[in-house]
């Protein structure tokens, strides 16, 4: 009996010696001085980590962005616009915000009115989803039309286009209008008003006519004869 107990005790002692003793021996005895300096270093590391984290968050939270939209409301410190994706966006302004208009030398916040199309460049805050504008300018956006040519008016040099959303748009073809035709084999080839046929796919860009609704002064027309004309 004593032998068994002695054997078990020996095994237990041996295991304890193998696993526990080196761990205990490897741990240095802390002095009060090194303990204090260690705490100071740890505190400094924590402070540095916090500062880096907040700076990184700040950098990620704000980024440069440029937006375009139609003005729906203006105040001394804020412009509300509807952007190109029909989202309402808020533009904040401060004393550093600069305003410009290609058509006017002196241009300021008071010159911006409801319905104007503006572009704003500034700092976008991802959290508040607002942009602090540094530059605000009025812009003329081109109108882009994609559809099927419905008819031609050779006297007015006008092309009627039915768009995919079943709108009727009219393209005024001017002398300055660049017309081309695209085929997969030959690419873009120069074309003209006389070569425009009815019932043909077309992409056109131009400026909206301020007097006549749905009328566009075309700057560029690209005909796509290889694309089927059935509107989907």
């Amino acid at each position: 009996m004593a032998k068994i107990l002695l054997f078990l005790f020996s095994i237990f002692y041996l295991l304890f010696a193998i696993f526990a003793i080196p761990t205990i021996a490897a741990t240095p005895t802390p002095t009060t001085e090194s303990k204090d300096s260690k705490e100071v270093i740890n505190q400094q590391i924590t402070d540095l980590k916090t500062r880096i984290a907040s700076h990184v968050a700040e950098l990620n939270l704000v980024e440069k962005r440029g937006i375009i939209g139609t003005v729906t409301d203006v105040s001394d410190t804020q412009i509300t616009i509807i952007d190109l994706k029909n989202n309402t966006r808020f533009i904040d302004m401060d004393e550093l915000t600069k305003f410009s208009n290609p058509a006017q030398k002196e241009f300021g916040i008071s010159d911006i009115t409801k319905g104007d199309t503006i572009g704003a460049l500034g700092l976008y805050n991802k959290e508040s989803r607002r942009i602090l504008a540094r530059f605000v300018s009025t812009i003329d956006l081109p109108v882009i039309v994609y559809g099927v040519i419905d008819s031609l008016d050779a006297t007015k040099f006008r092309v009627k286009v039915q768009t995919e959303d079943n709108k009727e748009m009219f393209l005024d073809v001017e002398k300055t209008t660049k017309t081309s035709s695209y085929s997969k084999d030959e690419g873009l080839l120069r074309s003209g008003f006389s070569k425009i046929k009815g019932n043909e796919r077309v992409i056109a860009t131009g400026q909206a006519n301020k007097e006549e609704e749905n009328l566009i002064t075309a700057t560029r027309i690209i005909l796509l004869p290889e694309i089927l004309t059935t509107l989907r």
Partner: protein
Amino acid sequence: MKKEKIILSFVAVFIGLLVAAIAFYFYESANRIADQKQNKVVSKIALSPTPKQTFFLTLDSPKDEEVFTKKIITISGKTTADAIVAIISKDYQDIVTPSQNGDFLTTISILDDQNMIDVIAIAPNGQSERLTRTVTFSTEEF
């Protein structure tokens, strides 16, 4: 008497370990069966036929509302291989054809300040997908 008690204790510990080992074995076996069943479900899903690909357009570059310090920017994205892609801005209009896997890439020049870039993918049957991006050229530091 004491000797008997010790032997009994050892036997009890041994039986306890044996029971625990058997229980562990059954637990592991049950887990393995469950995993195998899950794998079978996954392989069934993978074997089902791929749905017919519909017409699409995705743009990798540029990101919407991105600000560039260079006037030449890259337009890249993906559509179906048989489509054509029209890239249109105020100052630039061009048509590119995607590669066999549908990827397309081209460079365009942008104007000062804000630019609206329209990318229209058109399928041979006339179906189209359109994406618009607002990009800005500015070298201002703020």
